[in-house]
């Protein structure tokens, strides 16, 4: 008690004048705080009022607004920008063909900077201020886990074209995912490595994030089930540069090394492994799929094989049309993010055409999508809202990606 008195003894030890001055100052503070809160509150009300009753009635043209949330800036900007560009490419094509039921699609892309809080703000803005009909996103798994409950509560369809962490679609029936999941592709790769290539001694090095851990767990389980032995499992953090200690620990007596992570680190791991005398084949997942892997990894990644949901070298006409129009717009090859986002937008547009402006019907039409032919193969959705898609296995030959199976 004495201690509390010591902490809160302002009146006893202060002269009267000082106490009064303090009170005046604190009054000023309170009024500033109240004013500030009121200002935000007013802006909030006027903001939502000026927005009009609903997005659909906006303007003269009949417009359906599509939202997109993802990291457009910051360390993960590459992924978010690819998704935005993929969606935009799809929307441009749809609008050029007359839109959806006479409505023009309009994309509103919001930046999340790769942070969950920002993503939550962005999606609230899209839902409340812009009144979007559907959302493509979020991009990173952490973002999606944060914003999916918000979309679900607001009854807005949300389809992520890239978040692969397990269980995201369990959040609700408005949440869909159009990307091959980590467990599926890790198991496929284990099967390919053990059954097809006949490897017995494998090792895993994984990024200590949701992506890497999910890949590692599923790869290890499946490979062991098939009778192969995993002789080493090591981890690293995104942004690490030196992997030699882990590689030395794994040793050079392995036939294949499964790198569960993205291409930047994978390229460095491959190079350092070769320098350490590890001659094993490198295996990976869709995080490998970028021309940067070859640019950064050079000779070291030659022969590497990985699972992917999209192959830009595919002969199929739809794929080539997409690749060339994307290249024309953004002067780079579309990656898997862009391709999945493109297909996602096309699928959402198809559901929109059937459902009209009814959001609940939109979600049901989405769930009913069967064998949609897209640039990432044919897509259906299961009861949970997970896409059922083909998994491709690609490998690097003479510095370019080719189909392995």
């Amino acid at each position, binding site marked *: 008690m004495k201690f509390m008195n010591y902490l809160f003894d302002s009146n006893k030890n202060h002269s009267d004048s000082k106490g009064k001055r303090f009170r005046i100052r604190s009054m000023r503070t309170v009024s500033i705080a109240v004013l500030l809160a009121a200002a935000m509150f007013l802006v909030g009300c006027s903001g939502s009022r000026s927005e009009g009753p609903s997005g659909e009635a906006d303007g003269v043209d009949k417009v359906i607004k599509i939202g997109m949330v993802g990291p457009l*800036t*910051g*360390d*993960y*900007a*590459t992924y978010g920008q690819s998704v935005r560009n993929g969606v935009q490419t799809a929307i441009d094509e749809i609008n050029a063909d007359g839109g959806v039921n006479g409505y023009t699609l309009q994309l509103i892309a919001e930046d999340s900077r790769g942070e969950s809080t920002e993503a939550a703000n962005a999606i609230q803005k899209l839902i409340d201020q812009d009144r979007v009909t559907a959302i493509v996103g979020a991009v990173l798994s952490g973002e999606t886990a944060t914003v999916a409950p918000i979309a679900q509560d607001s009854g807005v369809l949300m389809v992520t074209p890239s978040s692969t962490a397990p269980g995201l679609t369990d959040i609700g029936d408005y949440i869909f995912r159009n990307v091959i999941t980590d467990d599926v592709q890790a198991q496929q790769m284990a099967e390919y490595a053990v059954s097809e290539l006949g490897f017995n001694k494998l090792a895993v090095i994984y990024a*200590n994030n949701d992506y890497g851990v999910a890949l590692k767990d599923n790869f290890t389980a499946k490979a062991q089930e098939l009778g192969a032995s995993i002789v080493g499992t*090591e*981890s*690293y*953090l995104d*942004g*690490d*540069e*030196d992997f*030699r*200690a*882990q590689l*030395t*620990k794994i040793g050079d007596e392995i036939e294949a090394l499964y790198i569960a992570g993205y291409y*930047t680190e994978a*390229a*460095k791991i491959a*190079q*350092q492994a070769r*320098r*350490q*005398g590890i001659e094993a084949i490198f295996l990976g997942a869709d995080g490998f799929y970028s021309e*940067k892997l070859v*640019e*950064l990894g*050079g000779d070291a990644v030659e022969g590497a094989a990985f699972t992917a949901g999209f192959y830009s070298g595919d002969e199929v006409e739809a794929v080539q049309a997409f690749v060339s129009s994307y290249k024309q717009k953004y002067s780079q090859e579309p990656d898997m993010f862009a391709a999945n986002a493109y297909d996602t937008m096309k699928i959402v547009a198809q559901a929109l055409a059937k459902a009209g402006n009814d959001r609940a019907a939109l979600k049901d039409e989405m769930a009913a999508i069967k064998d949609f032919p897209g640039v990432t193969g044919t897509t259906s959705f299961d009861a949970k809202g997970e896409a059922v898609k083909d998994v491709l296995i690609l490998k690097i030959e003479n510095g370019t990606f080719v189909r392995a199976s």
Partner: protein
Amino acid sequence: MLQQVVNGLTLGSSYALIALGYTMVYGVLRLINFAHGEIYMVGAFIGLMTSQTAGLPFAAAMVVAMAGAALVGVVVEKIAYRPLRKAPRLAVLISAIGMSIFLRNLALALMGPQTRAFPIPFEVKRLNLGRLRINSFDVLILLTSVGLMIALHFLVQKTKIGKAMRAAAEDKETASLMGISVNRVIAFTFAIGSALAAAAGVLIGMNFNAVDPSMGMMPGLKGFTAAVLGGVGSIPGAMLGGILLGMAEVMGIALLKSEWRDAIAFGILALVLLVKPSGILGRNLQEKV
């Protein structure tokens, strides 16, 4: 196991290279230059630009990178630190953190988030001693850091400007009374420290064949840890601290689990700060009033 010692040595020498610049600036200014890691990144980018875009040979690119980074360092000092020389520590620290964030994001805005390849322009030779593998570039990094350490030691101990630096480190007021232009000495220190950071950036960027805007953050922190471990302000200490930190990290991975790598590095930092804040080779600094 022997291979892990080699791994620790090579990782450690790259930490030492960064720590040298830190220790220079701290020795004179008693200021953690939070932006040091970012200057390391800027140096790597300049090296990449000059060697790839402008096509200059390795040595020339290195010199340009060092000169460019030195310029950046001096400008940073002039803008963010010099006006605050007499302000309390807290203000300078916050300004330094702000500068570091600013530079990193400026690079992000100018260069984009993509990692760029920075291949070694000459053949890397591999030495196999039984099962032990050493490659020539790692040896180059180790030799460079030892060479720079000796050169710095000479600069500080044997030259006139070195004497001025020591004088300024001792007591700026008195140094200026003795006719030393403290501002110039400090600018010079920043130039040297930044050039060292650029050398580190180019060498390490090449070794890992990767340059990106966020590359300075972790090495910056680790380099600082190394400097503290060895005794901030002590040039051989930076070398020793770097090697020890590299060893500790590698041994942590080799004997424990790799998940805890960064925790080990920062754990060591915390431990050193608590047990002997002056570091292994540093002298006890009495704060004066």
